[in-house]
């Protein structure tokens, strides 16, 4: 239907006249009535992006975020009806976006917000408990672990956890000037970011790629000779980050 092509082409282009053949019901040209659809499409997509990137909205302010969203929706109109997933290209857009390049961490913040949202909707999984580790050391060194689908690991050269906390928690300290890899867990329904040391990050990368705990431990010790697994394992167990497999 050519009529839908014409209708669609003018939706994203405010300078373009409304398509021909539209009327008000009494035979008069539809005129600005077409703009209702234009407005619905553009504002609903801007709203969807604002919902998906609340920290970017806070960092940039509503007006600048609105301009960014407008650029985004023209360059990357949605390819799926799942608005919860809209905005996946935001980190890419921000990484190469000259007007905001002085705020270098925006792309990583966008990546974090996408990961938090994906975690929110990720599959449920039965967690393992500490009994998994009640085996002798030799056996433990050969054990592999599975991370729950709602966990995610984000590498960043920016103090990403501090940036998140500073923009979501009252009275949070100002971000430190250190790189912060971030682990996202979802103990029940609410995703939560955690800052990691480089050795903890190394251990998680290793376990996630299927290495045994022995191998992962050796990797972490290479990064930091004083690496102690206990705090990290406590975190992973209390936040239900490790699983036996998908929940029935």
């Amino acid at each position, binding site marked *: 239907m050519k009529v839908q092509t014409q209708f669609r082409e003018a939706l994203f282009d405010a300078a373009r006249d409304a398509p021909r053949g539209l009327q008000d019901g009494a035979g008069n040209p*539809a005129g600005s*009535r077409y703009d209702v659809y234009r407005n619905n499409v553009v504002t609903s997509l801007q709203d969807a992006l604002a919902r998906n990137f609340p920290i970017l909205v806070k960092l940039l302010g509503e007006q600048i975020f609105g301009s960014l969203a407008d650029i985004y929706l023209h360059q990357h109109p949605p390819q799926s009806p*799942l*608005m919860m997933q809209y905005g996946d290209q935001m980190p890419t857009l921000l990484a190469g976006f000259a007007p905001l390049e002085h705020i270098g961490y925006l792309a990583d913040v966008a990546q974090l917000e996408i990961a938090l949202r994906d975690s929110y909707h990720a599959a449920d999984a039965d967690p393992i408990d500490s009994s998994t580790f009640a085996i002798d050391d030799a056996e433990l060194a050969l054990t592999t672990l599975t991370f729950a689908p709602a966990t995610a690991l984000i590498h960043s050269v920016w103090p990403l956890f501090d940036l998140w906390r500073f923009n979501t928690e009252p009275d949070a300290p100002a971000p430190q000037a250190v790189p912060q890899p971030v682990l996202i867990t979802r103990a029940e329904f609410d995703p939560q970011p955690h800052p990691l040391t480089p050795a903890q990050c190394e251990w998680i990368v290793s376990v996630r790629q299927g290495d045994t705990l022995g191998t992962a431990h050796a990797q972490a010790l290479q990064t930091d000779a004083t690496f102690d697994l206990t705090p990290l394992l406590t975190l992973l167990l209390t936040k239900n980050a490790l699983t036996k497999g998908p929940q029935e």
Partner: protein
Amino acid sequence: MREFSPLCDPLPDAVGVGYKPQHFADILDAPGPVKWVEIHAENYMGQGGRPIAQLRALAEKFAVSVHGVGLSIGGAGPLDPTHLARLKHLIDWVKPASFSEHLAWSTHGGTFLNDRLPLPYTAATLQTVADHIDHVQSLLGRQMLLENPSSYLAFDTSTYSETDFLAELVKRTECGLLLDVNNVFISATNLGYTPHSYIDAYPLAAVGELHVGGHALDQDDHGAPLLIDSHGDAPSAEVWDLLAHTLQKTGPKPLLVEWDNDVPDWNVLRAQADVAALALDQVATK
């Protein structure tokens, strides 16, 4: 005749509300007259987490209507197989009392436009929409309901009235209809016909569900009133009147109150559900 085996009981001839996550605790605790909830399919197509857990809990207490907003039934192109698969997965596990979608299109050339866009009512679009409904009904193995749009304009090329178009779709596909009374009032005001005449011409025998909701007032280029389907307020007095006129003809039906934007506290929405319950009572006792 096409046979559809019902997966569970149909929606009750009672009041439902459009479910909002912020009402989760309140609606379970103090549902008032509410016997069923409508969820928007696309918001429950994630893999797990809170949305799915809430839907499971709701489905234990209420009948559920799954209402799609992204299938693009009126689209010129084929239906998106990926989205259809997601929909089938949702329908298969929720086993809702009803599934409905819109007489509209929202996807074109692979781009989703996130609005229900209008189509001309012609022999060609009738065939396309009928084919899409057939496709959906055979995939899901159940009847679907099709909702009338809220219109801000009309097409010069239309050769069917909207009511005739819907009646023909019912005849060809054996789909049911979701009659949105607010949409009728909006379209009638915007396109210059009387809403009662629309209801009188509508294929009411196919109605499986009624909707009421709020709208906002704007103006067109000539200063004529232009109603916007905002779902951001209580239904207007005119919409309640039109509902009463409709119920006189249909008798009690599943009746949804929808409030999607500027969502109020549960008590405010429940008060509107009370108004809807009263409207149903008035025809039930006749």
